[in-house]
Every structure is written in structure tokens, then in C-alpha cells.
């Protein structure tokens, strides 16, 4: 008997049950987008942590360790790297959202910077997460469905079925369904990670046998490099152009991958969830105990175990495990994996749909759109995004992969405008806009997408993916930061809008630096920099040999880098706790946040302007398309 359809039906029924509950709570369409900002803090914490890890940890993290070994220890610190941005931003963004009654990242950026470019960029990042990043994971799940049903269900049918379930609960229940179901999905996904690990260890004969297998691998000179970081940096031309010595897992590769991971909690998805919460009370606990400690521990222990098991024997990969266990366990683990992926995909789709309709289309082209039509249009857009994702999963998987790899590094470029809003008042509007523009260029030029597009037009870059073994997130941020600093220095006299001034005034009033936090500031900087240096930065080279005996054997009975990773995961939890609570960066706040009342303004009729904008958009698209065709015909190959 095939248990997968039975469990799948049960899962679909549960999603529809919660969609119904959410739709009834929504009161028609009134609270579709943000659940009336009433999501409980603990639900919000679970959803953010679950979406941050999603299916990525199992599908990609374990596979990367299985294929490349422990040479990229940043993967073991994923929980900490994902938690740090939340500690830095969430509390302040929630307060600003509450004060100005904002409900998405796009709205925050528009209110503070008044930049349509930044709003459009945030929307593009949300779309990338919803279509490509989530699409990649859904495609992997569809392949697993094909495998588990012995080919009885084809790939297009599997991807369509998964999309239909996702579409159903997102369009019916909106943010409430995504949140309520998301909390259950997060727990289920976490337990699935433990379950996969348990079965892998049982299959191998225990943790001792796993490490015995790793010892045998390390004894093979051809595979010994899988257990070390190959230096601080290697000045190669990048993947696809020049191979690195040993492998590409240098210390700076790790640091830049960690930076890429830090993009998720600066993305519109995570911020949407934060702004939909009714209170910031759960932020510190969520980032410290749920994200860094629990989910971080799952990655550092369980996902690493799974990756190591796949290194020892390829049969212990996710697909192999699902096939080897009993069908009821296989179905249960698969549904857990599906829950994790759909959690992130659902949040991504809702955020992307809102960003496109409510943050772009409505203010630019159709200001008279009423509430019901806005929600219905968003539902249609969500359907179209999902359709695009399914089509790409089946017809253009390579393009999907290339686009999916852009999501995290591009989201990381949002750090500079977010820092400007929350902490660094000297970042001016022109600096943030130009910086993000250069950051995007930096990412695109070091990712296969940009390289392939330029190559299509006949321009071959002399480098490949991740030149100098540095991930695109860091290249983008280097350009982003440099330009932001320079432009900020020259544009300090430019004033900010009324809302931005109110945001600054409000934050400085409601969050005066406490004496304890002020006195610990230098300690916080020192601890953070030390952790970054040793856990994911150049200090990783010490981890190669930190837990080795003089004869080269493993002092902890496990690879030295794994032990190093576990040590700094524990230290990282301490760091997140210290920053959240002691430095009060994410600590609970009891103050009331009254709504900001903007002064009344004279309002002009926008219909003609909206009509003109639509005409300009169509004309620009047509000219752009023509130019691309001409350039491709003239210079392309």
C-alpha cells in the first residue's frame, strides 16, 4: 500500500481546514494581507524560524555537505547567521510599522526614503523568493514524489498537485492561513529533520559508525580535503573559469555564504511576518531560542549528520532515506519536508502578490482600486506567480536554478537601506538608492544569471561564479557599502521627508539607549566581530586543526571542523542572547505605540497621471524589448 497519497490527502485537508478558519477570521477581505496585525508573537517566531530554514536545510544544506564535506562551515552556523539580522532589525521595524501603520517592507522603504526604485526592488526580491527560490525546493519535492510513487505520478502532475495545495490555502486564507498553518508546518519540518537524522543514524549503525566512516574517508588523500577549509582565500577566476586548489571552500567563501544567509531576515518575507505580529514580545525569544538555539541546533547537529551520512554512503541522501524506510515513515517524513517548503513558499507568494499589487500597481496605476478588488487581484497575481513557478520547474529548470540563486544575495543588499532606517541616520536617500543599485550590479556580475545574460549579448566576463571564492552576496555588499559611504558623505545636506523625520524622532524617543546597554556596547562589538571572525570568517583555518591529536586523529571522535562548528554554534546562541536581551536590541517593550497622524495635505486628482504612467510603462517595455532583440541579433550568439 502506498501511504504517500493517504498522508498527502490528510495534509491537504488540514491546509483547507486552516484556510477556512482563516477566511472566517478575516471577515471577508478586511484582514487578508496582515491578519489585522494580530498574529501572536510565538506564532510569528515559529513562522519566521521555519521559513528561514524551510526545506533549504534538508534539501540543499545536507546535499552540499554530502557532496563537498565540511569545507563550508558557514552552513553549520546557518541558525546564527539567520538570527542575527532579526536581532538587529525586527524590533525597530515593528515599532516603526506600528507607529506609521505600515505593513510591508515596500511601505517602510517608501515612507522613509520615498524611493520607488527601492520599493520595486523589494517587490522583485519577494517575487524571486516566491517563484524561483521556493520553486527550486518545490521542484526537488516533485522529483521525490516521482521517486516515491515509482514513476506512477509524473513530474508535471506532482508539481501541479503541490502547487494546487499551496494556492488553495494562500488565496483563501491570506496571512492568517500562512501564519496559523505555518506554526504547525514549522514544528513538523523541525521534527522531520530530526526524523531523517534518526533514520540515517539507525541505518549506519549509530553516531560512532558514522564517524568511523568519516575517518575512513579522511584517510583517503583524494577525499581528505573535504574535512578542511582550503585557506583564507584563493585568488581564482571563479567557478566555471578556474578550479580552486582542493575545493572552493575557503574561509572567505564561508563568510560570504553566511552573509548571503543573512539576506533572508532582511527580505520582504520575514519583515512582512514581523509587521503582522501584534507585539514585539516574542522577538528576542524567537530569535534566540527558536531560531538560533533550536533551528540552529538542528542544522549544526542533524543536517550535518545527514550530510556526513551522505558522504559515507550516497544511499543516505534524502531521496535514498525516503526510499529505504517503511512507507508510512517515508510518507510522514516527506510531508514534514513539504510542510517546511510550503511554509516559505506560502509566505513568499503572499508577500510577492501584495508587493506587486498593493505596493506597485495600485499606487502607480490604479489608485481607485477598492479593498475587495485589491485582494482579488492579489489572488490572481498569486495564481500567476505559482503558474510561472510550475512552468519553470518543468520547462526551464536551469533558469529556475539561476534565478533562485539570486534571491538571498539580492535580499542581502537590502541591509543598507534597512540600516539607514533603523540605526545609521547618516545614510541618505541618494546613498541608499545608489548603493542598492551598485549592490545589485555586484551580485549580478558574479552570479551565473548576469554572466549568462552578458554572454548572450556577446560580452564574456573574465571571471566565473564567485571569483576569489567569494559569494556574490559579499561582492554585492562590497559595492553597495562603498557607494553608500561615498554618496552619503556628499549628500548629507539633503533633507528627508516628513515621515522619515517622524521615524527618526520616534525611535530616538522610544528607544533611548539604556545605561547598561551603553556600557556594554564595546563588549557587544568585540563579541560579534570575534564570533564572525572565528565561526564563519578567516579564523576557520584554526578549526582545521583545533581538535586534532598530534598524530592527526580526531580528538572529539568527529571531524575537527564539525567540532569547531558545534562550539561556535553554542557561542553563537550566547551571542544572539546577549545582543537580544542584554543589549536590548530585540528585548520586549511595554510602551504603547500611538499612531502617527500626518498633517492634512491637499490632494490632487491622480487619474490622468496614472493613465500617463501606464502609457509610459507600455512604451518603455516595447522599446526595451525591441532593444534587447536588436542587441541580441547584432551581438548575440
Amino acid at each position, binding site marked *: 500500500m502506498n501511504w504517500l497519497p493517504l498522508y498527502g490527502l490528510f495534509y491537504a485537508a488540514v491546509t483547507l481546514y486552516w484556510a477556512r478558519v482563516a477566511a472566517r477570521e478575516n471577515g471577508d477581505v478586511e484582514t487578508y494581507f496582515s491578519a*489585522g496585525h*494580530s498574529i501572536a508573537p510565538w*506564532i510569528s517566531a515559529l513562522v519566521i524560524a521555519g521559513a528561514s530554514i524551510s526545506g533549504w536545510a534538508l534539501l540543499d544544506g545536507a546535499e552540499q555537505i554530502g557532496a563537498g564535506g565540511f569545507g563550508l562551515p558557514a552552513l553549520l552556523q546557518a541558525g546564527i547567521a539567520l538570527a542575527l539580522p532579526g536581532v538587529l532589525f525586527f524590533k525597530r521595524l515593528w515599532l516603526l510599522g506600528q507607529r506609521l501603520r505600515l505593513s510591508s517592507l515596500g511601505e517602510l522603504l517608501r515612507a522613509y526614503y520615498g524611493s520607488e526604485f527601492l520599493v520595486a526592488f523589494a517587490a522583485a526580491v519577494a517575487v524571486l523568493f516566491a517563484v524561483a527560490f521556493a520553486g527550486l525546493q518545490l521542484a526537488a519535492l516533485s522529483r521525490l514524489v516521482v521517486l516515491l510513487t515509482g514513476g506512477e505520478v509524473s513530474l508535471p502532475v506532482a508539481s501541479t498537485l503541490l502547487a494546487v495545495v499551496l494556492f488553495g490555502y494562500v488565496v483563501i486564507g491570506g496571512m492568517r492561513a500562512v501564519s*496559523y498553518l505555518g506554526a*504547525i508546518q514549522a514544528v513538523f519540518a523541525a521534527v522531520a529533520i530530526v526524523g531523517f537524522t534518526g533514520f540515517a543514524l539507525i541505518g549506519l549503525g549509530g553516531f560512532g559508525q558514522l564517524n568511523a566512516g568519516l575517518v575512513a574517508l579522511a584517510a583517503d588523500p583524494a577525499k581528505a580535503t573535504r574535512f578542511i577549509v582550503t585557506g583564507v582565500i584563493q585568488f581564482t577566476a571563479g567557478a566555471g573559469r578556474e578550479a580552486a586548489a582542493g575545493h572552493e571552500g575557503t574561509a572567505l567563501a564561508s563568510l560570504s555564504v553566511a552573509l548571503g544567509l543573512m539576506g533572508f531576515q532582511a527580505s520582504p518575507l520575514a519583515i512582512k511576518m514581523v509587521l503582522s505580529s501584534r507585539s514585539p514580545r516574542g522577538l528576542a525569544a524567537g530569535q534566540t531560542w527558536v531560531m538560533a538555539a533550536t533551528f540552529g541546533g538542528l542544522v549544526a547537529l542533524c543536517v550535518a549528520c545527514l550530510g556526513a551520512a551522505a558522504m559515507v554512503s550516497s544511499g543516505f541522501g534524502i531521496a535514498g532515506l525516503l526510499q529505504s524506510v517503511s512507507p508510512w515513515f517515508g510518507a510522514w517524513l516527506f510531508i514534514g519536508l513539504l510542510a517546511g517548503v510550503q511554509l516559505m513558499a506560502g509566505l513568499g507568494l503572499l508577500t510577492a502578490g501584495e508587493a506587486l499589487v498593493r505596493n506597485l500597481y495600485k499606487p502607480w496605476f490604479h*489608485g481607485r482600486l477598492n*479593498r475587495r478588488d485589491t485582494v482579488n487581484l492579489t489572488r490572481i497575481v498569486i495564481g500567476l506567480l505559482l503558474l510561472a513557478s510550475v512552468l519553470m520547474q518543468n520547462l526551464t529548470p536551469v533558469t529556475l536554478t539561476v534565478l533562485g540563486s539570486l534571491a538571498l544575495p539580492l535580499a542581502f543588499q537590502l541591509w543598507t537601506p534597512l540600516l539607514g532606517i533603523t540605526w545609521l541616520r547618516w545614510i541618505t536617500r541618494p546613498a541608499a538608492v545608489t548603493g542598492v543599485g551598485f549592490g545589485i550590479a555586484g551580485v549580478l556580475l558574479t552570479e551565473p544569471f548576469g554572466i549568462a545574460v552578458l554572454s548572450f549579448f556577446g560580452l564574456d566576463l573574465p571571471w566565473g561564479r564567485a571569483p576569489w571564492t567569494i559569494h556574490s552576496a559579499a561582492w554585492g555588499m562590497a559595492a553597495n557599502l562603498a557607494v553608500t559611504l561615498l554618496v552619503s558623505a556628499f549628500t548629507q545636506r539633503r533633507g528627508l521627508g516628513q515621515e522619515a523625520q517622524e521615524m527618526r524622532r520616534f525611535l530616538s524617543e522610544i528607544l533611548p539607549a539604556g545605561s547598561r546597554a551603553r556600557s556594554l556596547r564595546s563588549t557587544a562589538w568585540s563579541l560579534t566581530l570575534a564570533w564572525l571572525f572565528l565561526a564563519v570568517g578567516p579564523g576557520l583555518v584554526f578549526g582545521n586543526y583545533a581538535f586534532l591529536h598530534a598524530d592527526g586523529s580526531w580528538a572529539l571522535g568527529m571531524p575537527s571542523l564539525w567540532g569547531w562548528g558545534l562550539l561556535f554554534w553554542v557561542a553563537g546562541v550566547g551571542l544572539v542572547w546577549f545582543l537580544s536581551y542584554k543589549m536590548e536590541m530585540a528585548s520586549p517593550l511595554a510602551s504603547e505605540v500611538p499612531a502617527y497622524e500626518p498633517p492634512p495635505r491637499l*490632494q490632487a486628482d491622480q487619474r490622468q497621471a496614472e493613465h500617463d504612467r501606464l502609457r509610459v510603462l507600455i512604451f518603455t517595455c516595447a522599446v526595451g524589448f525591441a532593444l534587447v532583440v536588436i542587441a541580441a541579433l547584432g551581438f548575440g550568439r
Partner: protein
Amino acid sequence: MAERSESVPLRQSFIFDRNLEVQSMSNRGPNLERNILVFAVWAVLGFLGLGIFLEGMARDLWSLSALGIALIVAAFIAHIVINGIFNTGFTPGETALGIGAYGFLGLVFVLGVASDGMTIADFYSGLTLFGVLAAGFLAYLLTRHGLRNAFSQFHIKPASEREAAK
């Protein structure tokens, strides 16, 4: 806040448009949160327990089946603890689902025994499951409602009798 006016300039219009969702705390909040926890508990402990129970049946290992039953009992205990935290009991839907599932599985078990297709380990695994669940159910009723009131949970008088008693 009200729907934004059509004549607001682009940037300002957006600022006023952001607040169409009234900030509200759902009246059903605690119940919803309880339901989320109940679903999470059963998705994890319940289904894992079921899987281990079936594994024990497949391998003819009573001890493994007993471990699965222990997990199912743990799911019940977690459910009752959640009920206690939220100061509520099982909902009518949960009761109906639980009794229905118990009856259905009992029927399957009886049919399995009658068709003579069960091993001794399977037989004892089934008996243990139904025995433990029945004992647990009674224990729950007795501890929650007391000996006398536990019986009253099932003894529902027709309206005419209630009127007559008055």
C-alpha cells in the same frame, strides 16, 4: 483607517493606504492558538507513534508497537496539558474524531482477528493499543469529572425527562 482618497498624490497616497487593515486582536485568539498546538502535537507525536506501531506490526515486534502506543499516549497527554493551559476540554469535533477512529480501528482489528491473518505479536499489539486507549480514556474521564460525573458525560437525559424532573 479609511480607504485612501482617490486624489491623494502618489507618495502621500501610499502612506495613507497602508492602514486598511484595522489593528485588532481576534476574540478567538486563544482557541486558535490551542488548536494550532493540538495540530502540531498530533502531526508530530501522533503520526510518529502510528508509524512506529505499524513498524512493530510489520516486524512482529510487540516492544516496538508498544513504543508507538506510548507515543500516542504521550500525544493524548500533551493534548490534555494544552487543554489545561487554555482551560478547556476536548471539542465535540475532536471527541467525534477520536471515538470514530477508535471504532474504525477496532473494527479493522476484529476483522483481522476473524480472518486469521494475524500473528501473535500483531494480536497483542492490537490488544495493547485498544486496552491502553480505553484505560486512558476512562482515567481521563475519572480524573477530570470524578466517578459520578464521568458517567453523566454519557447519560444525557431527553428534554422531556429533564422537564419532568423539575
